[in-house]
């Protein structure tokens, strides 16, 4: 798929996420907008995966785990638009009797979701377990996982960091959604995680920087570089310098858009900046 096509999808994914969150009058727009380009790169160009029929074990394909589950509106849109479930289902986001739970869950059997995430810090460990399971079953495919930088306050992230390096889990590519924002403010004010790259290097991970985290060519080339580093005894971490709220000017870099839905006038301003590029749900 060419870059223009991917950019078109990413633009629609942003629009989907805002429409979903507005319709539900709840959700997490900032992170969803910030990670949309990476999700699109992974699912539409980079990963070798099988949307249908969905297999929970993920054996024989690349697997992605979203550990910072709250940003799932954009992820759900990408899953639907890459064929995991019907696009119309996006309109049920956060509604009663929906498979699209407020945070990702397996109980309702939404294709594409392999673990519940939402309580932070847990998905990286799960991804490591899936990577070990692939090794034991001689599956050469890779495991991808996204974690948040606010999420990296959790101790379990650093337990997992130690474990993956110690056990040479080198079929794992993690991505930190490094937007420097968390619920109560800037990460440097709430609980500083800097210097983050040095931390991951010190923990024994191959660590890459993705400065242009909204450029699809840059994302794809960093993902390819990460793949080239896999299989060499170390897990790989990509620090992706994303912009929270990317694509909606008044949401960009404003931590207050972590977890609230836009009011009607805000929605009108936001959606005007996100014109449809594909069919709306």
């Amino acid at each position: 798929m060419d870059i223009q096509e991917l950019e078109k999808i990413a633009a629609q994914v942003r629009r989907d996420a805002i429409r979903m969150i507005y319709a539900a009058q709840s959700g997490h727009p900032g992170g969803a907008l910030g990670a949309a380009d990476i999700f699109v790169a992974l699912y539409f160009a980079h990963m070798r995966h099988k949307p249908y029929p969905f297999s929970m074990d993920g054996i024989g394909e690349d697997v992605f785990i979203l550990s910072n589950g709250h940003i799932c509106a954009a992820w759900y849109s990408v899953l639907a638009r890459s064929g995991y479930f019907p696009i119309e289902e996006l309109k049920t986001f956060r509604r009663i009797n929906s498979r699209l739970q407020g945070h990702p869950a397996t109980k309702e059997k939404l294709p594409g979701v392999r673990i519940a995430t939402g309580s932070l810090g847990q998905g990286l460990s799960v991804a490591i377990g899936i990577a070990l399971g692939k090794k034991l079953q001689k599956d050469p495919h890779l495991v991808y996982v996204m974690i948040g930088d606010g999420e990296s306050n959790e101790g379990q992230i650093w337990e997992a960091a130690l474990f993956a390096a110690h056990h040479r889990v080198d079929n794992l590519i993690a991505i930190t959604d490094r937007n420097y924002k968390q619920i109560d403010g800037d990460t440097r004010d709430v609980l500083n995680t800097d210097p983050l790259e040095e931390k991951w290097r010190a923990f024994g991970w191959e660590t890459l920087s993705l400065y242009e985290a909204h450029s699809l060519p840059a994302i794809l080339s960093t993902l390819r570089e990460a793949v080239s580093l896999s299989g060499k005894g170390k897990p790989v971490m990509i620090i992706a310098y994303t912009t929270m709220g990317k694509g909606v000017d008044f949401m960009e870099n404003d931590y207050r858009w972590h977890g609230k839905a836009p009011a009607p006038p805000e929605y009108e301003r936001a959606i005007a900046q996100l014109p449809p590029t594909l069919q709306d749900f």
Partner: protein
Amino acid sequence: MRPRFIDLGAKDTRSGFGVGLLEAAQRDSRIVALSADLMGSVKMEAFAKHFPERFFQAGVSEANMIGVAAGLATTGLIPFVGTFANFATGRVYDQIRQSVCYSKKNVKIAASHAGLTLGEDGATHQMLEDIGMMRGLPEMTVISPCDFNQTRLATLAAAQWEGPVYLRFGRPVVPNFTPADDPSFEIGKVQVLLSGTDGVIFATGHMVWHALQASYALEEKGLSIAVVNVHTLKPVDEMGILSWLEQTPVIVTAEEHQVHNGLGDIISHISTKYRPRFVERVAVQDTFGESGKPDELLQKYGLTAHHIIAAVERAIQRK
């Protein structure tokens, strides 16, 4: 004549887990295991020696260990995680809740050193709230076997059981009195070890042996008291328990656990649902333990055959 259970040779229940885990792994190549720097204490060494590629040392990182296990289970493997009951439950409650139970992963949590009988290490390590925490989780199965032989069988059964299992056992050497390949052991079914017409003691874990001793002593006084082993605390055998509640008003529970949220509450719940009865509880009375020898602790905190006998006598008086 009622059966006479005798000690076939005292052993620790944790060793029953170790033997069962190795056997299960020899039968099923999907079984893998993780330990949080306690492989020796939790008796996982034989497994690690026989199957080094299927064993993962997690270090003192229990939260990560639960998550890694959930990931391994996602790929179709059957992970057993082993650590002390304290670190296997309270410390990782949220990981078990979200990554294992809510996500419905086939993870087996092997919790050793449960209860007061951990002994000298004291209250920091004496987990007495775990049955409550674990049975409160949807999707979880909770098993508390009574001796070495039954812990081995419970481990084998847990390996074949689909879904999350919490398997609770202990540290000290205790009487081993159930048959080696007891055909009456089945997850989700109570075991009637002794029948009786004057009352019933429901017991779980180490307290089953003490319940048997209490029943034998009461027999000397002319009382016929049944002993029912409730090794599966969830899913609980409601009908198996109810049939005893129907038969007798003398109901006693015995558990090495806090008085809240454990076996006493389970029996009371069934009782209030179908057949209201007074329930006399032998359990730790909402307090922390302390350092000491297992027998000294059981004595001080009221968990011996004598305490069970007193509870039966109280129940008879309330009749």
